[in-house]
């Protein structure tokens, strides 16, 4: 498992055009980023394309990530997640519907996998656990499955604006908890 320093070093060298460092970066982070793309897109071929795009972006953007003030792994996760969500939105727009909701729901890990993941997931998970169950699920759905307010409103059977009010309140509570 690569350390933060490793990833930082590989990114810095990638920014200098060091292909060997880029390959090491890929070797040690691609499984995590591919898992995330797969979770969001729930389609293997599309997730493979997405991962390729993500690493093309990483190659070109490695020099600028510090400008965003993010830690290296957070930046990689953000690049992967944003790209996967863009693709998901385009696919949904092209399909013109919400057909994907059921399919995406199936991709959620079982309770056991969630418990294991929680052990590593740190503060945000503890703070999500302080929220009411459905509200924490809504935040997770947005982050991990790229669900929109419309998706969430449908899933939780509440009007769109109610969903938004819920979620914004949840975010403010989360932020308070994260800062405690």
């Amino acid at each position: 498992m690569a350390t933060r320093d490793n990833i930082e070093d590989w990114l810095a060298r990638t920014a200098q055009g060091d292909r060997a460092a880029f390959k090491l970066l890929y070797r040690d982070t691609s499984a995590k980023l591919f898992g995330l793309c797969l979770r969001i897109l729930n389609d293997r071929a599309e997730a493979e394309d997405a991962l390729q795009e993500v690493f093309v972006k990483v190659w070109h953007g490695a020099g600028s990530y510090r400008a965003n003030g993010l830690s290296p792994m957070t930046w990689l996760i953000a690049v992967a997640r944003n790209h996967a969500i863009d693709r998901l939105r385009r696919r949904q727009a092209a399909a013109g519907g919400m057909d994907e909701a059921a399919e995406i729901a199936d991709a959620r890990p079982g309770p056991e996998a969630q418990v294991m993941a929680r052990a590593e997931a740190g503060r945000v998970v503890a703070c999500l656990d302080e929220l009411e169950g459905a509200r924490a699920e809504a935040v997770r759905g947005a982050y991990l499955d790229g669900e929109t307010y419309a998706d969430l409103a449908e899933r939780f059977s509440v009007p769109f604006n109610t969903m938004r009010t819920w979620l914004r309140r949840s975010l403010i509570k989360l932020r308070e908890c994260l800062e405690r």
Partner: protein
Amino acid sequence: MSATDLPDDDRALAGEYVLGLLAPDEARAFAARLADDPALAAEVARWQEDFAPLAGEAAPVMPPARVWRATSARLFGARRRGWLTWGLPLAAAALAIALMLAPDLFSRGPTAPVDPAFRAEIAAEDGSLALAAAYDADTGALYLERRGGSPAPGRAHELWLISGDALPVSLGVLPTDRTALSLTLDPELRRDLEGATLAVSDEPLGGSPTGLPTGAVLAAGTLTPA
């Protein structure tokens, strides 16, 4: 309220922005504010950091090797088209690389790398030819030691590197007057050595005239992490 003195509304908005929940026009308007508002930009970064551990709830999945191949081909040029679509230009390039490497084949007194990244046993199935290879990733040097076998009279042994499904690239003709040699791999060739094949073919004296193997492959071995 926090030390950053952002109103709750903006903090929630930053969270929605990071989650991807804003409608496209809202997201654009929000992004436009970020350039001039460092506190807001810091809030966005904070949400990114805070949410990132949630990505750990998506189980890691090893991507298939073709994703790396496609990515590197896209970024660094296509070295991986199929056998049949590679034409003369590639053979010429391979020959050029071989010529470039040739002087290294005659360097004197090579020593095996202390800490090789990869090793390969290049051996004929019937034991008639055997070489050991060790690659030093720090210097790009490929060290070879002939352990047995020599070319037929009037013939030569030529060494080839085959990465993935790319065409064989000649690393030069193996000298017969010494058992150990070291050659420096062209940087282009160093990228994809893990799992690559080293092979020795039977060729006319001076090596293959075409830049691709023309004779029988006598021995082959896979480069594996040392």
